[in-house]
């Protein structure tokens, strides 16, 4: 909405944009009971717990793919191994999610800070690889992987004939 308002502000000279007002020009007194100095001290005291919280949160992020594994296993069991739209969609999702996560790893790693970052990164990658492995296993159990000789039958060229022969009934 703000974007739209700004655009209209450019278009129409008579419109008043209330969102873009310069805040520094605000010279109104603080409301009663509000002390800006207290707000800053609270923020400073919170910073002391920050590093342990950060590590905890980072571990949450790193362990998230591994936590999904039991859920995935249950889904795999429920879906069955018939080739129809829902199992295929599920297998597709199982592939797409870890691959997408592995491609956007850099953004995730920004969230992983602190002293244990390298371990967390490794655990995170391991979790995604486990998810991929599960997807592959599901494909294998559904018979979607080209691991049998019959899957390559269509690509076999016909045998070249070495000798050429002909003939038949005597024409004399």
């Amino acid at each position, binding site marked *: 909405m703000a974007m*739209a308002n700004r655009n*209209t502000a450019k278009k129409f000279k008579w419109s008043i944009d209330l969102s873009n007002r310069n805040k520094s020009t605000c010279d109104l007194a603080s409301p009663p009971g509000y002390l800006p100095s207290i707000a800053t001290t609270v923020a400073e005291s919170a910073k002391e717990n920050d590093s342990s919280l950060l590590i905890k949160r980072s571990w949450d992020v790193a362990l998230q793919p591994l936590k999904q594994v039991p859920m995935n296993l249950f889904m795999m069991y429920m879906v069955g191994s018939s080739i129809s739209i829902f199992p295929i969609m599920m297998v597709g999702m199982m592939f797409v999610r870890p691959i997408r996560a592995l491609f956007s790893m850099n953004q995730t790693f920004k969230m992983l800070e602190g002293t244990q970052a390298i371990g967390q990164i490794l655990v995170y990658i391991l979790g995604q690889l486990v998810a991929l492995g599960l997807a592959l296993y599901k494909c294998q159990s559904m*018979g979607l992987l080209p691991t*049998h*000789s*019959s*899957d390559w*039958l*269509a690509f*076999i*060229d*016909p*045998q*070249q*004939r*070495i*000798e*050429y*022969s*002909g*003939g*038949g*009934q*005597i*024409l*004399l």
Partner: protein
Amino acid sequence: MAGQINFVRRDAVGSNNRALERDRFGLHKLILIVTRPGKLFAMDTLSGRIVWQRLLKNVNTDKLRLYVQRTSIHYPLEPQCTILAKSSTSKQGILFVFHPITGEPGNFGSEGYVNLGFNVQQALLLPQNEETEYIKPLLLLDESAIPHVFPPTESALSHVVKMSDNLFVFVADTKSCVLRGYSLAKSTADHLSSAPVWQLQLCSSNDVVEEEIVSMVSRHPEEKVFSQGRVLADRSVLYKYLNPNMVVVATAGTNHPHHRGYFNLYLIDVVSGAVVFSTSHRRVQSPYHVVYAENWIVYSYYNEKYRRTELSSLELFEGQTQSNSTAFSSFSAPQPLVDRQAYIYPAHITAMKDTFSEQGMTAKHILLGLSNGWIQEMPRVFLDPRRPVVAAATPEMREEGIMPYLPELPIPAEAIVNYNQTVFNIKKIHVTPSSLESTAMVFAYGLDIFFTHVTPSRTFDVLNDDFEYGFIALVLTGLTLASFITKRLASKKSLRQAWK
């Protein structure tokens, strides 16, 4: 059509003549017919009209052979067909070369007639290439087994010499049941020569039995095999035994003291002379018919004991592995595994032929000409020797696409390709593929002649007649219109929202 039709071949149609326009699907062809009195006809497949006709002069029409040496695909090179016959005066071989589209004699000999000056024992068409200007050279073996090439050009001769190391010819004497194999390996650039390499005596030399070769079938030289194996239920592959040099030879005779007929079937590799497989049936009678395609053989006989016609089916496999996946040589060929099964057929068969398509992708049907004038189209899966004797189809069988074994084969009314237009005394059925993979053309002759198209796997490459072009066009234009209208409506809505 007063005369008896002797041999039929088709050829693609050229584009010079306005009436004979080439069509995109290769369904417009000319049927070339040589009749017993020695008359040559070209018949249009679309209308059945006789395009041209010509009487062969001074030829003995006993054993005529018609060879298509060059089809009309190789424009601007002219198509060329050749008839091999015997001269009516000297009994020596004579060739008549002609243009299949116009019927004009070719530029050989006198008015297309070429006197060979020797008796022809055997003739075969060799593969073509660019060097021979896409002419398939005709290799002729005279009575002392000396090879000759027609057309006798430098390029054709060098082509033959080049492939002579691997070139083999066999000659079979149907009366004495002797097969002889010749190799052309000793040929040099200026002298073609052949040497006998093997000889087989199939029939017993005992005087009390009269046995002779009743049928000799080799695979169609233009047949292509699309799949090199069959997929089994456990997703492994059973590879087909595809021997291009194998010939099916059937002999039949009567055991005199008891007057009981018997029938022997031999699968012979004509390069090495090896008998790949043989089987025998006791107490059977003619008529015998044999069909051989890809890696399977279907043959029919009359069972004296049970008084019924039976169809037997053989299928040859290399096994779960291919001994050589790139090349096939008869000298190092593996021994095939043979599956077989026999079926009861409730009618009298007078002719039998398999359908084939350009790429070999389409399913195979067997065309059976019956004594009541019907032509039945029988899917090959009904004659599959892998049909197991079980009560009901198991899931594995369903996956593989095979049915449980039932001895009786049906004749459903919808499988009769000639409806109520019965063809009496069917002598032979000819099949040629069209450019449409799904469609094959069938020509049957006997007392009547009959031509039709068959589509063994349905017309999967052609839109149906009831395809709704109008409806599809309507839906598409509707969708395009709807997208324009919604675009306009969306812009209006966003404008209205901007005003809020």
